């Protein structure tokens, strides 16, 4: 059979399997059901998670031997397309926290056979939630200056120190941490990637409230916390390489999903502007200044989408992690933040409501969204750090600041 014919028959198979397994009762309800806070899960959602997990289609391109789907990138796209058609969704990326987008791929790449057997199948089933312990109060952009330490105690590691911005740490089962295992080595050479069980007395979490309201982020404190001796991912003191690789996966996951307007973006800026600002006699937006800026924004957004598509096409449909992720991340956050600013401007004073019945839900969502999105150019390597990466790794300019 030709490649195309194979894919067509796969499409049939996917369609049939989805028809049999996706509970139509939860069609289109992904975002509302799969919130991280949801303690009592919907029974239909639970059924769907189990079915998807058994089939391995929540992580379609991961190897089947560890619980993934064992499929090609193209087949994964087909599943995605067929899911969209019927309002189905993949709940696992949210249910697994950092497990699917970041930790899983890194374990698959650097883990020992035993680590893969232990950690990957539960991620594929959506059974476990992973947090990530990278940043510390004094190690943000300069991650390699981290101080949280793990001491070799013969049969285990003893961990002491603090992490911050650990998303979802308060309900995570596992955390992948960068810790210092050698204080005498140059700073990048004394770091290891250590996996810890969050369910132990030596770990405490404290939530961080953000400017947009409560958040999934925590400060996490380790006081004589323990990790199994065989939970170092990659080489001992080789954590910088493993950690950087994981960050590339993170960046890759932040290159435009939001900016390209997911299913949620039903109302366009144009619609909103016409509703709140009104049109002149020719039907043009009554505020020509705003009109010009919206047009400029729409052009930037389209350029950004086209660039994302081009980079993917040039990588031959293969979502490979590359230095271009820095360009895409910066473009995506700039476009997305600009959209939020324009939305707020369009809504005028109605866009500044904090709570209460005088504001519609979408108005309240706009102001909170605008505030939260300010973080897009800070996390996952800030705007400035991405530019440093572009200057150094793509343009070949000499490194001036990141001597480690």
């Amino acid at each position, binding site marked *: 059979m030709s490649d195309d014919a194979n894919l067509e028959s796969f499409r049939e198979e996917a369609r049939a399997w989805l028809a049999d397994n996706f509970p139509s009762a939860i069609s289109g309800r992904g975002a509302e059901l799969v919130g991280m806070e949801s303690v009592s899960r919907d029974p239909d959602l639970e059924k769907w998670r189990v079915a998807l997990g058994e089939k391995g289609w929540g992580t379609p391109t991961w190897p089947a031997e560890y619980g993934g789907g064992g499929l090609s990138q193209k087949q994964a796209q087909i599943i995605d397309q067929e899911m969209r058609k019927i309002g189905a969704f993949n709940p696992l990326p949210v249910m697994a926290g950092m497990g699917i987008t970041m930790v899983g791929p890194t374990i698959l790449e650097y883990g020992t056979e035993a680590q893969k057997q232990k950690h990957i199948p539960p991620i594929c089933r959506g059974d476990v939630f992973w947090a990530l312990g990278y*940043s510390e109060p*004094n190690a*943000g*952009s*300069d991650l390699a*200056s981290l101080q949280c330490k793990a001491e070799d105690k013969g049969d285990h590691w003893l961990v002491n120190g603090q992490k*911050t*911005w650990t998303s979802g740490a308060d309900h995570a089962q596992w955390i992948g941490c960068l810790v210092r295992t050698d204080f005498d080595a140059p700073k990048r050479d004394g770091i290891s990637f250590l996996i810890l069980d969050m369910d132990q007395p030596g770990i405490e979490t404290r939530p*961080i*409230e*953000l*400017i947009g309201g409560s958040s999934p982020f925590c400060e996490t404190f380790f006081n004589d916390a323990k990790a199994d001796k065989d939970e170092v991912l990659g080489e001992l003191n080789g954590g910088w390489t493993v950690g950087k690789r994981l960050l590339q996966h993170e960046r890759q996951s932040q290159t435009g999903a939001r900016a390209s307007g997911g299913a949620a973006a039903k109302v366009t800026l144009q619609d909103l502007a016409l509703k*709140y*600002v009104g049109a002149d006699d020719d039907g043009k937006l009554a*505020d*020509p*200044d*705003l009109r010009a*800026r919206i047009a400029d924004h729409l052009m930037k957004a389209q350029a950004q989408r086209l660039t994302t598509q081009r980079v993917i096409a040039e990588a031959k449909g293969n979502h490979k992690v590359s230095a271009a992720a820095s360009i895409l991340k910066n473009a995506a956050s700039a476009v997305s933040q600009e959209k939020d600013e324009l939305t*707020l*401007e369009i*809504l*005028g*004073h*109605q*866009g*500044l*409501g*904090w*709570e*209460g019945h*005088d*504001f519609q839900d979408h108005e309240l969502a706009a*102001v909170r969204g605008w*505030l939260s999105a*300010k*973080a897009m*150019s*800070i*996390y996952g390597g*800030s*705007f*400035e750090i991405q*530019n*440093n990466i572009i200057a150094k790794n793509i343009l070949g300019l000499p490194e*001036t*600041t*990141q*001597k*480690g």
Partner: protein
Amino acid sequence: MAALTEEQELLKEQAKSWANEEAPVSKFREMRDARTEEGFDRGTWKSISEMGWAGILVSEEHGGVAMGHLTAGVVLEELGRQLTASPLLASGIVGASALALAGSDAQQAAWLPRIADGSAIVTLAVDEGPRHAPLQTKLSATADGDGFVLEGRKAHVLEGLAADAFVVAARSSGSAGDAEGLTLFLVDGDTAGIDRSRLSTADSRGYANVTFTGVRVGADAVMGEVGGAAEVLDRILDRARAALSAEMLGTAAQSFDMTLDYLKNRVQFGQVIGSFQALGHRAATLFTEMEMARSCVEAALTAIDEDADNTAVLCSLAKAKAGDFLHHMSNELIQIHGGIGMTDEFDAGLYLKRARAAEATYGNQAFHRDRYATLQGL
């Protein structure tokens, strides 16, 4: 500040140390966390009044100190630095300006002394939708015997919950969009038919939506000419815009100082982050923008004091430039503080939220660029 008189210098010092000690941003945060209904602290307002600032524009014969708009700007800038919430802008500047420019002798005698001593809050109720658009006024004033009946709704009225009286822009003839047919009324807040609902906003200040249902007022409530208020309303608004620009300049200047401080103290990669050229240049650009914005704000306030011909142009310039700078500065305040800037515990978010609300009030940058172009004959 360029070329301040000795008196202005003294007042600036007084305002600065008072705001730092008595009404710092931590106090604003407390007020926010306590969810104070009115959106300001009565004790703070009392101190402001006792220092004479509530009557800073009010003539001496009516119990004020009549120090003029540039001087008022000096005070507002210092309060803007600490995000001090009070009815000073709404009542001491806008309400007082409305009465001075359009009030009858009787109205002035009744309200100006009370504005000056802080015992009454008089606010302007102009916009009816989410955006600043005075000519779009629809709230109707229908002649009824020798008085009028007001019917309609005003949105996002500053200090609308606490106000003792409203200066209401109403339409006595014509239709939305016309300059002709606007009339100002001075309406006691207790008048039957007035209903207020408090708004909870991102900047945690005092705003209310106010509805007027069959509100009956006498002929003595009219301010100025029936149907001919457009021009004086514009002049009142220009005073409001220039004063708010001064407050915004203060908010932005404080954001700048906080950022500069962080650039000099936060260490990453073994050096203070201000040593990274990417950030140093941004600080330099912001500083340049700040100097330009300051010139525009001072020029507008001075023009009002001198009753200059180009006052309107300068007021739109000031609001647009202060808005641009505050917008840019508040975004950089967050970005340069990195993750810390995103936390509620740190003050950056309070400045960012205030920035957008102040931008939208009395016309945003787009509104004033358009007005500026029109005034320049474009």
